[in-house]
């Protein structure tokens, strides 16, 4: 069975949820403490949501210096699949493993609500055959993705935009090919409505929405399960 490392930083609070989702998808979970230096024998790495180091400095800015991050960077450089969700995405941008930065939300408030996303761009180990639109929740105060013009052009041009906020939950069920790019769709103000980006090689993916929260019908929805089963499909 393939194994996934889930890293816990001080202040991570979605690590248990992530382990639950990975296990539901039929993969082994290996819990890794941020002070560890080795990932062990794993096939993928996931960085969970939360408030690493309280997010008292820029989100993710301290966690990137955690001892385990050297191993994560090496794993990514060797082409291993790495997924960062919410705070995990913020940590990945701080390490420079995925492009862009995450600013305070446009309205300056924490937002916990459903969003609808397109799935696009190049193939990643987490989105192989996943078809949009999908409905997932966001829960963050700093999810407003931003990059300079050159980076933005490169990210768009190279197919590194993997998820984009479109429409509102009401749009999903009767979804047509054309989903509106509305303010309500990207409530955090993200540039080009970008919700998730990958690195140039496509093996490192970061996203603000929480796929691990929607893996069961009774607790909100099942659209997130596709991300985990896609990975399982790739790892075999």
């Amino acid at each position: 069975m393939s194994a996934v490392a889930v890293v816990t930083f001080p202040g991570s609070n979605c690590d248990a949820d992530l382990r639950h989702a990975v296990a539901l998808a039929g993969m082994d979970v290996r819990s890794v403490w941020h002070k560890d230096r080795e990932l062990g024998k794993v096939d993928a790495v996931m960085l969970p949501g939360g408030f690493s180091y309280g997010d008292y400095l820029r989100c993710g800015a301290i966690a990137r210096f955690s001892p385990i991050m050297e191993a994560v960077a090496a794993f990514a450089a060797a082409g291993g699949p790495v997924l960062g969700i919410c705070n995990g995405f913020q940590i990945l941008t701080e390490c420079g493993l995925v492009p862009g930065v995450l600013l305070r939300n446009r309205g300056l408030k924490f937002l916990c609500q459903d969003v609808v996303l397109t799935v696009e761009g190049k193939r990643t180990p987490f989105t192989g055959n996943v078809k949009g639109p999908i409905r997932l929740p966001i829960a963050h105060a700093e999810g407003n993705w931003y990059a300079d013009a050159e980076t933005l052009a490169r990210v768009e041009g190279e197919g590194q935009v993997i998820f984009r906020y479109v429409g509102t939950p009401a749009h999903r069920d009767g979804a047509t090919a054309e989903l509106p790019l509305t303010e309500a769709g990207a409530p955090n103000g993200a540039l080009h409505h970008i919700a998730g980006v990958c690195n140039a090689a496509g093996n490192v993916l970061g996203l603000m929405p929480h796929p691990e929260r929607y893996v069961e019908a009774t607790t909100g929805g099942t659209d997130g399960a596709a991300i985990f089963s896609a990975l399982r499909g790739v790892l075999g």
Partner: protein
Amino acid sequence: MKAEEVKRHGLTMAEYERVLEKLGRPPTDTEVGVFGVMWSEHCSYKSSRVHLRRLPTKGPRVLIGPGENAGVVDIGDDLAVCFKMESHNHPSYIEPYQGAATGVGGIMRDVFTMGARPVALLDSLRFGRLDHPKTRTLVHGVVAGIAGYGNCMGVPTVGGETRFDASYDGNCLVNAFCAGIVRKDRIFLGTAAGPGNPVFYVGARTGRDGIHGATMASESFGEGSEEKRPTVQVGDPFQEKLLLEACLELMDRNVIVGIQDMGAAGLTSSSVEMAGRGGAGLHLHLDRVPMRETGMLPYEILLSESQERMLIVLEKGKEAEVFEIFQKWDLQVAEVGQVSDDGVWRCYWHGEEVAAIPTSLLTDDAPVYERPWTEPAAPPPVPELVHPPALDVLTKLLSDPDISDKTWIWRQYDHQVGTDSITGPGSDAAVLRVKGTDKFLAFVAECNGRHVYLDPYRGTMGQVTEAARNLACVGAEGIGLTDCLNFGNPERPEIMGQFARSIDGMAEACKALGIPVVSGNVSLYNETEGTSILPTPGLAMVGLYTGTARQVRARFGRAGLEVALIGVLATRHLGGSLYLRAIHGLLAGDPPPVVPTWERELHDALRRLIAEGLIEVAHDCSDGGLAVALAECCFGGGSVTPIGVTIQGDWDVPLLFGEAHGRVIIAYDPALQTKVRGLLPATVPWLRLGETGGTELSIGAIRAEVAELEKNFRHSFADWVDARLTTGDA
């Protein structure tokens, strides 16, 4: 000691005399401070204790009742739910963000100190009038504070309620509830036992914040209360998240004798209460306490209310384990004393004794007052009224701040983390699954201060039954209750009368419904410059069901459903209603009558209908009566589509907006009508109201587009709260 100096320590002269007599010598300055906080209203319940004894606190499921850090109720299969509600009113008024944040932090510590992992938060909030200059700032600050703390901790805020009234203009209420799950064989108590066992201090360092917070919470507000800002604590949810994980990890090692958080009155109350429960003495070396600043005095260390700290009594010989775990989580850990067998609470400062008080003097010998109280006066009668057109009333009520949509608030709370939330905020009750079991927990927080003000006894009975009804609407049965009793100045006989009769009402309803009160909190002196708040005995009730997740919602969501009312069918009771306040500016009349036996049968029937999957929709009628409840059922939200409904019959204004208890709107597939009625006992009447479909709400003289009504409902509070915080600049 001079009278003003005694008063500065929060004691009356008579209480100081009591200290002299019991101690047999004049206390040191440090000791007076300790008596001041331990005998404060907040810590000693000296005005409320005689009344609280009347509450039913036992039941077959109760594992731990009042008196510990939180109550614990058995949910079967070796699991239990641990919960408590607590106020943080005065601090939140003075410094809304930190006041609310530390209120949430404190209640979570009360729960995880028992060994439970927190799984749900709820909040009951009360603010003043919308046009009061402080209200908007308070709403922003309090909501951000709750979000800032709860979200960081990774505990979902799944429900709550927010209401507004002029009586809260100068004294907002912030009542936070937390529930956690604990294994029955792993419940920890705040007790110090075993002479020689070491006492450990863990968590954050001690600073000068919050000194005399407990005594502040035991005084009325007057001019200059803002100057008390330094008595408000500052929260650090990141520290608390680490503390939570470290404590739970240590609890797994089976080396703890007792553990208690340092809440109100900090190190003093935690060490004294632990020694009191264990019938032991305790020696503390205050100079060994990790400090955040230099030059702190013993008095300050004892009374500091710095947050995110715990006191642990450990089995002797297991010291290495506590160091290993707390250092892993980068937390402070220090051995600060030991349990003794002399029954005396002693503090040392660099080897010199600075306090030595027999433990029982601080706990058992605290004064208990039978304050004089008067029977509450009968409410003013509802006068002859000219009723405006029903549609105008409905429109106005839907935009009333008590009713209007509060998505603006709960969207700032992470209500999903933990991935157990089945039904989140904005419903009759929140529902969470317990992972790995077939159990589901439901939570509701409730209080209608208008009803309690008009008749404290009947009004409070009504709140208990309504909370139980809310739980029944999601298919759950109430198994325990925690209260948060917010009242004015207990030295006024009419306020004490409200308190006494409110307790009677709560006791009566809880006994009738078989729901024990397992924990709680009393917040008195909620008055500013002589004006008391509406009596607000806030309560949170916990419900349980087993099996599979119930498929019932509070919105119609589709056409072709038959809509019916079950329970109390037609009543023109307008006393205490939101209609009277919002339309006529009146607080008058008897609140609606409560018949607990009828309620019980209604709730049982409702749970059966839901468990058997016969009904799709259940929604309680409360503020704004039947018309508002029906409108809410029509609205959309999330993935639910808005839908119209046509109701037959003659419905005049009192029938539409009266607030009777004991009734619930249900909706179901018309083909199931016979089965639905077949399940209802004769004591639960049924009335077909109409059916869903179209885009209009049609009842009595009301014919309105649901979309228009929903716009009112969605926008009025959100527009007000987002309006500029400061006006004047163009």
